């Protein structure tokens, strides 16, 4: 019998085109493309007279810099407009499928890939965006790449890769009510640190992971990159198949049956070896919030901001000092009750229908605090449409939220949606880096229900106090 294998090893081996010592060429099945990291790659192809090897294996959409206000009269910002037009022109020139900004399927790449059934288990998926790890929720090997690699995939449908190591994160137990996939992800990052996964592919397992919906699994895998691992993986199961069946770009008929049969062989074999493993207990987890400028700076909502004197490591202490100065927080004080100015619900981390439902259930019948500007940006046109069908838009609008057009928006603040200097935001996105949501802006990462609760109370708050 052959040696037991991890799901990562299985996908890796089935995609090896060429191997010579450490020099491996990996076949890439799917390539997602957006406006910001692709123009220089297409330009590179043109300059060296190269073509796209498999245009049908790529799917393009503009999401990073488009405005989330009415776009029917154009983009407004000239540079953004040029970048988006360049994407459309490049797709036309090279025969790549492009979802236009006016198409109702338009949205954040990592939301539309799964929605369209472009994302499938057992595949290799890349995109010039670090949160490509999202697609690992389906049991696909998915990771972000730079622009040179975008060009490499366009030209060759392969990547030169080194095999990563296997890291198993088992999350045992059941989550309490109001503790979500976002909290699980933040707790993993808090436990292993933002560099804890560097050089690894993380496979998530355990009861808490199995019981997550597909949306929740995407949130968990999405944030894997914030733990330093390029890819997160969750073995596919019946939930995965059910989510994908009949999606427009998923296989049909006999092909579907054959695919499912194959997908069932993907989960890691019993006895498979991991280079590193940790176990986390979900049972006693509270909703989490970040206090600093790195996603690992995470505490429970009933916890206190760290004291400098408690930190032994010199470089860590000076990093914390810098963070707390930037965030304007008092060491040792409770995080709960810190007043906020803005709330952002959206992004590829938490911009899916389930996230909006979760936030809406907290907001329903309440009003956004008068000192807060709050907005909801659905992750895609289809998410927006579904939410409107369910009346979620009304719940948000009646409470005083803004209801926007889909895009990345204030996750990275490349468009007009950004924090003003010193503004403090409860955000469902993924990065609380200095300046990420606007120069000198202060970001606290939270789950959708926690963001909704913060909007209502006007401060960082424990959602359980609002819902119980």
């Amino acid at each position, binding site marked *: 019998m052959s040696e037991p294998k991890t799901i990562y090893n299985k996908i890796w081996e089935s995609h090896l085109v060429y191997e010579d010592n*450490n020099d491996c060429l990996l076949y890439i099945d*799917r390539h997602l493309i957006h406006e910001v990291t692709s123009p220089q790659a297409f330009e590179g192809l043109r300059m060296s007279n190269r073509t796209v090897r498999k245009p049908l*294996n790529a799917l393009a959409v503009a999401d990073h810099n488009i405005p989330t206000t009415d776009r029917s009269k154009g983009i407004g910002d000239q540079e953004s407009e040029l970048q988006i037009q360049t994407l459309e022109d490049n797709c036309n020139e090279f025969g790549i499928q492009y979802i236009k900004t006016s198409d109702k399927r338009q949205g954040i790449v990592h939301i539309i890939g799964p929605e369209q059934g472009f994302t499938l288990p057992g*595949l290799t998926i890349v995109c010039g965006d670090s949160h490509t790890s999202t697609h690992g929720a389906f049991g696909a090997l998915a990771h972000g790449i730079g622009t040179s690699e975008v060009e490499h995939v366009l030209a060759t449908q392969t990547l030169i890769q080194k095999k990563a190591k296997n890291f198993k994160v088992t999350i045992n137990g059941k989550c309490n009510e109001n503790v979500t996939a976002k909290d699980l992800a933040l707790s993993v990052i808090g436990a292993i640190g933002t560099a804890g996964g560097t050089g690894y592919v993380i496979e998530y397992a355990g009861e808490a992971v199995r019981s997550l919906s597909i949306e929740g699994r995407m949130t968990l895998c999405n944030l894997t990159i914030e733990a330093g691992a390029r890819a997160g993986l969750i073995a596919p199961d019946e939930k995965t198949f059910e989510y994908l069946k009949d999606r427009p770009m998923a296989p049909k008929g006999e092909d579907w049956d054959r695919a499912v049969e194959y997908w069932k062989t993907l989960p890691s074999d019993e006895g498979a070896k991991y280079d590193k493993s940790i176990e986390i207990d979900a049972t006693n987890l509270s909703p989490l919030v970040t206090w600093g400028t790195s996603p690992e700076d995470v505490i429970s909502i009933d916890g206190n901001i760290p004291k400098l004197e408690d930190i032994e490591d010199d470089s860590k202490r*000076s990093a914390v000092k810098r963070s707390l100065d930037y965030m304007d927080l008092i060491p040792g004080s409770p995080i709960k009750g810190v007043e906020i100015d803005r709330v952002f619900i959206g992004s590829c981390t938490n911009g899916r229908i389930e996230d909006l439902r979760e936030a809406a259930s907290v907001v329903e019948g309440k009003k956004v605090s008068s000192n807060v500007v709050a907005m909801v940006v659905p992750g895609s046109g289809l998410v927006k449409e579904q939410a409107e069908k369910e009346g979620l838009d009304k719940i948000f609008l009646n409470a005083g939220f803004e209801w926007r057009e889909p895009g990345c928006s204030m996750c990275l603040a490349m468009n007009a949606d950004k924090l003003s200097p010193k503004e403090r935001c409860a955000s469902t996105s993924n990065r609380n*880096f200095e300046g990420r949501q606007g*120069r000198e802006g202060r970001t606290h990462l939270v789950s959708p229900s926690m963001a909704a609760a913060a909007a209502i109370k006007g401060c960082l708050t424990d959602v359980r106090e609002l819902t119980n």
Partner: protein
Amino acid sequence: MEKFTSIKGIAATMLNKSGNQLSLMMNIDTDMIIPKQFLKTIKRSGLGKNLFDEMRYDMNGNEIESFILNKHPFTKAKILIAGKNFGCGSSREHAPWSILDFGIKVIIAPSFADIFFNNCFKNGILPIKLSEDKINLLVDDSMKGIEFEVNLIDQLIIIKDKELPFEVDEINKDCLVKGLDDIGSTLERSSFIDEYEKITLDNFVWRNPVKD
């Protein structure tokens, strides 16, 4: 890509202050290296002036004097020294483009984020992993503006009469030394890709995208 064999230049060290203590700045993310407002470009060049923009310029666009890359002689630094987990965050290749455009060809840190690390080699930048202890041996000389030589062929950092060896993966080294174009070398192996695709198409039809 330009060939990289050896470079000589001064090194700028990114430090954090806590009280009187200085320590290597860790977790320098790609948002810090090149903030998003500069990602709207469709070109690779010209980003050097915006490297570390929000640390380098105040709200009115004036240079912040105390920032290392604004201080003579570090405005001409070719080497950057920093703390662990350098280049974490967004995969934007604008980060190495802006570093290169500024004139920096070598980054020395205890650890790097994966995607950034790869992106460096694709752009002719050498990222060197050294332990924090070893890096601390370099900081003084760097602050004094003493010239460093980074010799990739012999894998040595040379400062005056001091020599510090470093490790680099053979394939990456080869790629930098020869200034190789990855795509060109992969295309030379396209018969393997052809063959792989033939087998896949026959056995795994579902792996082909269904056109919507």
